[in-house]
């Protein structure tokens, strides 16, 4: 899938952008989620929550968002709040209760329906296009600019990488692998080759080494294009640049693939 977004996504992003305008956001520090939520009539509670990452409970025009205090990473908690705020703002469903799992939010490219739309809302709210796009205009595609944006906006590396790919003018993609298999792919502008979801990682990829218990190199490296790409007609394309980061706690690898111009 390319980064051309369906109508519902665009609507969700527009709604988040309107919120940013409403609160005069000019810098990342101005994205004060709890205060925005409160002004909109939503309380945020960090407390125990069994079997879910977050929950939205409506009471008429008001609501409470409960975020599990078991989540260790503040960036993920922040995404959870923005995601639930998305359900609230977009009036999803008629139920007063919205319970969202970790999967709904953090394996977000695989999530379905309203969950994906709430993720699109959260993506724009936390990483607004008008602030992020210029930071994605880079000469070399690797995790350095992604990490810098994630630090500045207090967002997870995965959510940031997806936004980075969306706005980066270079031909690049981000992939998430678990159990030595590609779990999801998000392609940027003009990234034409096909990458099959569910394919086993090729031994020539750097990501493969993570699942062999080896340490990944810190820097990007050139790898055989065929190791990642499934298209029959790769033509002159012999190598792509791969930069992979392993998450030991999740047993997963996040990979950036870049086709040099």
């Amino acid at each position: 899938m390319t980064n051309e977004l369906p109508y519902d996504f665009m609507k969700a992003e527009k709604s988040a952008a309107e919120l940013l305008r409403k609160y005069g956001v000019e810098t990342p520090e101005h994205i004060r989620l709890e205060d925005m939520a409160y002004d909109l009539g939503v309380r945020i509670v960090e407390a125990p929550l069994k079997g879910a990452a977050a929950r939205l409970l409506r009471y008429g025009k008001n609501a409470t968002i409960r975020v599990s205090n078991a989540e260790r990473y503040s960036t993920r908690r922040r995404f959870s709040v923005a995601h639930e705020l998305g359900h609230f703002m977009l009036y999803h469903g008629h139920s007063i209760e919205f319970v969202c799992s970790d999967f709904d939010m953090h394996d977000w490219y695989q999530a379905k329906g309203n969950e994906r739309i709430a993720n699109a809302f959260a993506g724009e709210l936390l990483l607004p296009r008008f602030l992020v796009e210029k930071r994605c205009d880079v000469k070399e595609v690797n995790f350095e600019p992604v990490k810098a944006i994630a630090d500045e906006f207090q967002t997870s590396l995965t959510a940031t990488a997806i936004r980075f790919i969306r706005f980066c003018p270079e031909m690049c993609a981000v992939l998430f692998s678990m159990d030595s298999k590609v779990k999801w792919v998000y392609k940027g502008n003009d990234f034409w080759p096909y990458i099959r979801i569910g394919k086993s990682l090729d031994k020539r990829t750097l990501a493969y080494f993570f699942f062999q218990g080896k340490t990944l190199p810190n820097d990007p490296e050139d790898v055989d294009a065929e190791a990642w790409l499934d298209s029959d007609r790769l033509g002159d394309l012999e190598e792509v640049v791969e930069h992979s980061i392993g998450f030991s706690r999740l047993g997963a690898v996040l990979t950036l693939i870049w086709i040099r111009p």
Partner: protein
Amino acid sequence: MSEEKRYLEMLDALTESLGSSEDQSLEEVTEELIAEGIDVDASISRLMQTVGKCTKAARRQALDRAREERLRTEQRSSALAIEFANLSKARLLKMIREIMSAMPDALSLSFRDLESKSDEDLASILEDLELAKQLAVEEQSHDE
């Protein structure tokens, strides 16, 4: 020259020019301002930027007010969790249903499997509903 002084001078010159501009064309007014040493386009652009900055800063004040109120109400509501944790399941269900029945748009809402939830879940649901309800009551009292 300070930014403020520059704006004031520009506004003075603008007022002066506009004051006697009834019989002048737009070009003549502009020429007069240029003769006063004012780059009209650049000044207007700077002025608009300043207006934009002030507007955004004013909008952010809504967040400062929200923060103050939020911190105040957080202190008041921290006791709720303890209060509800000691209630029986029957009592929790009764209280949740009471709140739900009083909801403004209760007819369009549904809540599945309340009975099957644990006491702990029900207590947290009641707490969250109560917090949202408190906020609704506070907003109503602000409106009145």
